[in-house]
């Protein structure tokens, strides 16, 4: 039906991933922010992961037009 859902998914996670990565990078020396997450800069790590996921979705969407196909045979 017209819209390939991978576009919005890819766009949204790229955007959210970017937000978290930038915030994580800016706050990387702020121990107080990451006291809750056991001292791990989870924003930077998880933000990057979301970026990769979002980019992958966008890549899949742009490679195949029309919304069918992989992942998981359509």
């Amino acid at each position: 039906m017209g819209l390939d859902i991978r576009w919005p998914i890819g766009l949204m996670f790229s955007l959210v991933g970017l937000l978290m990565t930038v915030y994580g990078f800016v706050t990387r020396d702020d121990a107080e922010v990451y006291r809750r997450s056991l001292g791990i800069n989870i924003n930077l790590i998880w933000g990057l992961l979301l970026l990769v996921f979002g980019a992958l979705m966008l890549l899949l969407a742009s490679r195949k037009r029309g919304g069918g196909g992989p992942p998981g045979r359509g």
Partner: protein
Amino acid sequence: MQVTLSWLDYLILLTYTGFVVGIGFALRKYMKSSSDFLTSGRSIPTWVTGLAFISANLGALELVGMAASGAKYGIITAHFYWVGAIPAMVFLAVFMMPFYYGSRARSVPEYLKMRFDERVRALNSVSFSVMTVFASGISMNALAKLLHLLLGWNYHASLWICSAVVLVYVLKGGLTSAIYTEVLQFFMIVLGFSPVVYLGLKDVGGYAALTNLLRGVAVNPSSLHLREPGISYNANAWTSAWQSLLAGPLHNPMGVDWFAMVFGLGFVLSFGYWCTNFLVVQRAMAARNMTAARNTPLVAAVPKMLFPALVILPGMIAVGLMTIPSKGYRIPAPILDSAVYARATAAVAASADLPPDQALKAVSDAVGKRMDAEKVAALVRAYAAKPLAPAAFNDRLWNAVAEYDYDGVILSLVKRYCPPGLLGLALTGLLASFMSGMAGNVTAFNTVWTYDLYQAYIAPKRSDEHYMRMGQAATLVGILASIGCAYFAALYNNAMDIIQLVFAFVNAPLFATFLLGMFWKRTTGTGAFLGLLFGTLASGVVHALTIAQGNVPGFKGGYLAVAHTFPSEMAQNFWLAVFAFVVCFSLTVGISLATRRSKSDEELSGLVYSLTPKIRDEGVAWYARPAVIGTALLGACVVLNLIFW
């Protein structure tokens, strides 16, 4: 007690809201007929319907209820997945989808009309509509309660705002919109919660360390006020799925015997839900061809099998954390209102000179909950020395409550581990799960209402445009009715038990009807109708005659008389289902044999197994055939059961 959101968290939340609403608007131009709106015109690829299938099921029930059960019962909760879901999903895919999809019915009740007659359809569509609205309401109540606890948001405002978001995107893009946003929500939930689970597991020292901590809890659960004093289980009660179950109902935290678990949950309730519930079946029916439809539940089964790590583990982590005093964690106590705090302040002040046990009783009576003796004594001493400021007092009093609001487990972990940024993401995941559940219910409701009730009985033979408008109106009404049910559900504590109860009444007998209808051509409409009716009534009667240990006769059963006492509510629900199934099955068989068939073999072709040409998957590669994938999935499921034996 509350956590404040930063601008970044709000930005993530708004981004998500913007995208789901945007999907609705982007799909608006494709909504030309009632079938576009209500059934997606059968055009969606498998991986999308598969993830939507699981996401529609991933409502409040999963995240909140399963984490609650994980804390209350431990890994035995995983039976809701490995016993209570995967086998039924495979059965639906391999054996039942051909009839649903092949008959070209637009809904499950419509299939029943084709197979039997109008009576069966009417009964099923009415009970299904009521059930979806209730399920949706329960989920929304849980959402609003959590948002109130976590963010201090107004209960009513969050209820109405979330409903409004769902209303907008479902109204604009219909079922397609719901399915597409469900896929987005699926990823949001998984990606939003995995880091929280990871941090929690790291905090308790890994899974092996958690197992050790829970062994201590199982032997003496009353040390954490998880059970009444004096109750003790085997050390592996929280950490083994089968050993504690096989040890008997008195030796596992759920209080269930293996037969009720395997037959009641694994067969009757599970098959009743996954194979006949239009909420999930509707997603598969929207697939673009027969193979895609059959593979939909199989695609869904993969994440479903792994979900315990995401939804049950947090509950176990929460209990593990409580055993380490230095972590300073507790599962939240039920919310107390300001009148209770006022009464308790007076009671604490007046208890200064009383002996400790009398002081405990006075304070417990004032609060209306069980209280921790040591913490109350300390509070009374501290207050006698120097009256505390109200905020500090309330905090200590709330901490001294020795009862838990298990539904708060998941949010308490989110609060504990999430810095700004991740907090927004996890919270969005939580919101996404509620919205996907609600949208799933609403889209199933509007289809059944429009096609199976309105078009069938109220206004047949109108223009398609008329039905499309009715579908939109039903969307609005469904959401409003759900909101009403949310207020009703606010009266209860653990949403999970109530949902199971509703399913037991409605779904348990239903699977007997489908099983006989699809696989025995002799089943007649009268047999199916009366069997279903009396099966549902039977579960109601059993509920009225039995009770779970520790409950008083009333809403939770036993209101006519108490003929039998089950060790737990869960056991009561499972046995209720078994009873309803057996009554429905035997009555349907008996009455069918006594009545004349109303449909000929030709009419039943495509609707009954023995009268339908077998599907040959020759055009499909062997590894993509539903039977092959299904077998592989069952094998994987057995392996998981063995690992956590």
